[in-house]
């Protein structure tokens, strides 16, 4: 495993001290710098060089506790519908119901190797929070999760799951109470507790080494995807499609294909209700930072951001709280600038259409985040050809209430009659 992993790192986008072109870096308060440096050192030793067999233990736990490898499944109805070969990478079958465990387990284990005795994390949809809570319980580490108040109300089942696993969930009331505020609040906790605490960041965002480290923990997705596609089709995919908020499942699904120029990489962002921006209100009714954002500095990294003309960060919006973030991972922003990754924005309605399409044709209810990738298939059906691998980043159980309400409020052509749901299930 170790040599293979070291090779993987070389084939990924080259980084120079956490820089991807002009993006990345370490824009953090001075109090955090020693922790960031300690983490960089630990990342290089344990993750890159497999010191003390860290990566071996990580892979073993991903298999035993997480259930890896996840299947690659041909989607028969979707293949017929879009007249191409659609394959699904079933990260929804990973323990916890989303890809998030790859990173959470990796980081909590790393914190143990580093001798830290407490875990903190932020969460948006609650998927990273639940994954971190599971990993912390599994590895016997005390854990505190910060979650925006608005997200807590949107994602109650996940809040219960975190608490059942023994984590402390702290509501964040600042701003609109979503992921952006939760990250800021977790950074504040870390600034005070840095000597004993590891911050398990939930996506490929934040200061170096988080973007590369989180990518490496999720890279197992594309590593398996690559081998499984070869095995089942005899070749590489023609395109890989993944939804993108911060970009963790995206980078996980893309990492091992970045150097295969013939494989198209499509990052599907949340187009929300509109790609337009309300400067006056400081609101961007979308989370499409790759498609519409500008370069700036947020949460420790230079990247593409949704911001107003002064550089104040906008409140973003998406029907899925997991994509609802004003920034995006610096490596993904760089790959878009290099024309290696194609960003596509899919709006709330199309995402719901994708949600229902996968649910009623393939018997898989996707997370609303994941549903954006299927909204893309629906919207861009004419452009699909050959083998298309879609990363099913998470399952939709947590989103049932939201999906029912949002569907009922709109005119979604392929949705079932929702009145039976609102009358009580």
């Amino acid at each position, binding site marked *: 495993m170790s040599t293979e992993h070291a090779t993987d790192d070389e084939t990924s986008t080259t980084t120079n001290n956490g820089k991807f072109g002009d993006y990345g870096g370490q824009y953090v308060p001075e109090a955090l710098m020693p922790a960031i440096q300690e983490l960089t050192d630990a990342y290089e030793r344990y993750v890159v060089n497999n010191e003390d067999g860290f990566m071996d233990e990580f892979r073993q736990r991903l298999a035993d506790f997480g259930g890896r490898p996840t299947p690659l499944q041909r989607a028969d109805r979707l293949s017929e519908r879009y007249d191409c070969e659609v394959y699904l990478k079933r990260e929804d079958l990973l323990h916890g119901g989303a890809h998030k465990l790859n990173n959470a387990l990796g980081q909590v284990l790393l914190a143990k190797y580093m001798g830290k005795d407490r875990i903190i994390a932020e969460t948006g949809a609650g998927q990273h929070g639940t994954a971190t809570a599971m990993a912390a319980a599994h590895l016997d580490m005390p854990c505190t999760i910060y979650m925006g108040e608005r997200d807590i109300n949107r994602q109650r089942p996940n809040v219960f799951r975190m608490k059942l696993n023994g984590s402390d969930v702290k509501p964040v009331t600042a701003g609109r109470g979503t992921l952006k505020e939760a990250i800021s609040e977790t950074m504040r906790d870390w600034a005070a507790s840095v000597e004993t605490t590891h911050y398990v960041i939930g996506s490929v965002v934040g200061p170096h080494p988080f973007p590369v480290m989180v990518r490496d923990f999720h890279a197992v997705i594309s590593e398996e995807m690559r081998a499984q596609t070869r095995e089942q089709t005899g070749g590489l995919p023609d395109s890989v499609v993944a939804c993108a908020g911060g970009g963790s499942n995206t980078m996980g699904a893309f990492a091992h294909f970045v150097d295969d120029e013939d494989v198209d990489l499509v990052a599907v962002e949340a187009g929300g209700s509109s790609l337009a921006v309300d400067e006056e209100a400081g609101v961007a009714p979308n989370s499409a930072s790759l498609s519409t954002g500008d370069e*700036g500095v947020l949460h420790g990294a230079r990247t593409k951001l949704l911001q107003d003309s002064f550089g104040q960060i906008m409140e973003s919006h998406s029907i899925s709280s997991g994509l609802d973030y004003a920034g995006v991972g610096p490596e993904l922003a760089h790959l878009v600038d290099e024309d290696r990754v194609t960003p596509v924005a899919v709006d709330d309605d199309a995402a719901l259409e994708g949600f229902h399409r996968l649910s009623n044709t393939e018997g898989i209810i996707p997370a609303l985040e994941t549903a954006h990738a299927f909204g893309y298939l629906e919207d861009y059906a004419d452009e699909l050809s050959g083998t298309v691998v879609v990363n099913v980043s998470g399952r939709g159980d947590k989103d049932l209430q939201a999906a029912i309400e949002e569907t009922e409020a709109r005119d979604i052509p392929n949705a079932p009659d929702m009145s039976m749901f609102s009358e009580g299930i």
Partner: protein
Amino acid sequence: MADSGQAAETRRSDGAAANSAIAAAFDDGPAFIPYLAVGDPSYEASKEYVEALARGGADVIELGLPFSEPIAEGPTIQGAIVRALEGGMTPELFFEFVEDLAVDVPLVCMTYYNLIYQYSPPDSDGETRRASEASGAAASSGPEQFVARAAAAGIAGLVVPDLPAEEADPLRAACDEYGLDLVFIVAPTTEGDRLESMMERVSGYVYVQARLGTTGAKSDVSDQTDRSLQRLSEWDVPKAVGFGISSGEQAERIVASGADGIIVGSALVDIVADGVDNEWSTAATADKLEAKARELADGASRGRTEPTTDDG
């Protein structure tokens, strides 16, 4: 960078006297450096509050330019920033505010890097555009445009809590060009090479973070402060201690333990917040701020004079 005019054991920071006004503020006795978020809760009230701090004995004033994601601030200053943003504060209004102020102490702007990086002066038609959107060869880097505007408005120095020394060279260069000081924050965890690289780039004063965590008034004075001052003692740049100072007594103790100045933010912002919550008049809040400033300034002065009773 040893300076032949200095004692052998004292090391000189590169930009130590980039702006003589800030250096001079430390010349006669310990400096009292209050902080307020500009525009909290309104432009007009905020102007009176800052002027009250000057009357209360401020030697330098740190003016917060509010950013939407203040990750280094605790709840108190975060609250002030939210009020200021809701009151309509923008970078351009901030500079007008600085030009409007009737105070004669050096002013330091404290803000986050994105606002500096994105800054571009309004077009002739008054439209503000991001530096990254500005077209053509005329588009220079954000840091330089911000520093040029700050210097023109009368700002003497900058503190940028999310800009580590490693990323600071473009801003340091712009500050050198326009004669501004660039203040760095030294944390209790800052040592070795990091301390060196920071002290090579700092000017005006070094902001000594009294304890780990975010800003906020605390009743104890950390012994981390003593250790930080110890580590910095070989450098000749003035050391101002901040984070958690709320009383004249604490100010006195910190100066007595070797600080050249004290920085107070949250304890003052608390007064502004109380004024908002209790609907005090602007004048009443300003009076309380002036009284608190005097208590802190007097405390700082006592810290310098008490150990040397022979010249009292």
